[in-house]
């Protein structure tokens, strides 16, 4: 079976731009993996999201080199309406994608467009509202709910289409800490319970790192780093150069490594960091 995402020698330059937004990207993502994408603003992260769901080259003018394949087929070769069933994108500003007068209509809209039967729509609606805990809000207008709730509606609307790849572009950048945690709780459950491929673009690493199987760093339009999450954070010099700061637990153990005081695996969660620190202290 071909990989779910296969990008080869891919360069994209927006019309009238002096430099490419993405350059020489080679990336293969296996189905079912959870991938974190980080990098400074302007490094090409959103362009990558647009390239996966066909907005590029479909809706934008520019110059493309190389290929972007989803499940073995180039994005340009999908018939209209087919690619959204393969790749769904959730943006940081959910209001930009709302069209309906109630949360329920918002969730049903995409499914109706897919031509699903009413029983199928009911079943999926039940599933996504349970997963995202939106049941009490179904009758509400999307513009009357909080920012965190809006983001869960946007996520649910895309999930209801059951795309094989979900791309979330800074889904929590406008949210407060509790709403942010609830969005990541949904992603954690999705990772456990589904076989979706999940690609999350984020600046906020503390929630992302414990879930990510693998991390990608975009810097100056290029893929500066791509590795399993633990190996990724060992390369602190490359990360620092790109202005990426690992979560405190990782940064602490990396600093201990530099002092020659630690040599094991970097802890990716707070619990792991506490356990490792207790282990280190009890050896003395």
């Amino acid at each position, binding site marked *: 079976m071909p990989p779910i995402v296969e990008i080869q020698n891919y360069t994209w330059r927006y019309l009238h731009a002096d430099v490419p937004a993405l350059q020489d990207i080679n990336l293969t993502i296996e189905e079912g993996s959870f991938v974190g994408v980080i990098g400074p603003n302007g490094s090409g992260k959103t362009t990558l999201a647009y390239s996966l769901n066909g907005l590029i080259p479909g809706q934008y003018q520019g110059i493309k080199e190389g290929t972007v394949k989803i499940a073995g087929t180039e994005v340009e070769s999908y018939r209209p309406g087919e690619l959204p069933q393969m790749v769904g994108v959730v943006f940081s500003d959910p209001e930009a994608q709302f069209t309906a007068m109630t949360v329920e209509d918002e969730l049903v809209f995409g499914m109706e467009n897919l031509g699903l039967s009413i029983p199928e729509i009911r079943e999926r609606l039940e599933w996504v509202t349970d997963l995202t805990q939106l049941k009490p809000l179904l009758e509400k207008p999307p513009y009357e709910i909080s920012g965190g709730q809006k983001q869960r509606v946007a996520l649910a609307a895309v999930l209801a289409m059951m795309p094989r790849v979900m791309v979330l572009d800074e889904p929590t*950048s406008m949210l407060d800490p509790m*709403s942010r945690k609830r969005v990541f709780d949904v992603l954690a459950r999705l990772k456990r319970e589904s076989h979706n491929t999940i690609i999350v673009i984020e600046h906020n690493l503390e929630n992302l790192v414990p879930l990510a199987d693998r991390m990608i760093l975009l810097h100056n339009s290029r893929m500066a780093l791509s590795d399993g999450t633990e190996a990724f954070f060992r390369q602190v010099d490359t990360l620092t150069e790109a*202005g*990426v700061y690992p979560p405190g*637990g990782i940064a602490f153990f990396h600093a201990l490594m530099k002092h020659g005081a630690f040599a094991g695996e970097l802890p990716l969660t707070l619990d792991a960091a506490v356990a490792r620190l207790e282990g280190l202290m009890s050896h003395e």
Partner: protein
Amino acid sequence: MNDTQPAAYISVQHMSYSYPDGTQALRDIDLKIDRGEFIALIGQNGSGKTTLSKCLNGLYKPSSGEVIVDGLDTRSTSIVQMVRRVGYVFQNPDHQLFSANVWDEIAYGPRNIQLPADEVRARVEEAAAIVGLTSDDYEEHPFFLTKGMRQRVAIASILALQPHAIIVDEPTTGQDIPQSLEIMNFLQRLHDEQGHIIIIVTHDMPIVARYAKRVVAMGQGQVLADGPTAEVFANTPALAQTFVEPPQITQLAQRAAHLGFDPRTLSVDELVQQYLALHDR
């Protein structure tokens, strides 16, 4: 003023605020802010942070109790007097910028308080220079600037009014880390070199740990905790009510306190030094 103690620059006493529809947003707030402070106002959305900010600059008047700024009661002080004392920078600079070029944007405030033309010019040039804008930028349309630059224009337009205290609502939201640090280092310089009181309203706890000396934690319209940053982060019961978690490095130190680590740790370097000291013993 006969007190031997200098009065606080901003003094909030038993202040409550209700919106016109009757919703009570703030309940019985007591807060004193002195000259030279660098404060972070934290709490969930809806906890009252922004409402409190707008009470501090006189945009909202207390429903009961009082807010005294530089000796003036905000209820009886004109907005022209207030904007010279407390400036408020919106979270989204686009909610604040409306002029066709950078110069007019920064000059709007000084003109509006009817300063003479040469004073307006001097204030704009000074404010622009402080935020790192040059005369090349004066004719730019704010719409064509980057978000970071638009935020600088927004801050410059507040600085041109020369307020003593500057409140910045979510300075780092939507910014990447280098941009966040640039804005925060800039606010730090305003604080250190120009002596401004800086109040940031934020959800970004690593930023709080790094820059703020004092934290005011809000929840349900009340102040739940108020004190030095490390102490508020260590006040676990109060913090739990705000649903805010300290930075991961602080949580690690707190959970390793039984091993001899300081639960008031704020940085990776501090924790490394503690580890090495414990190790040497």
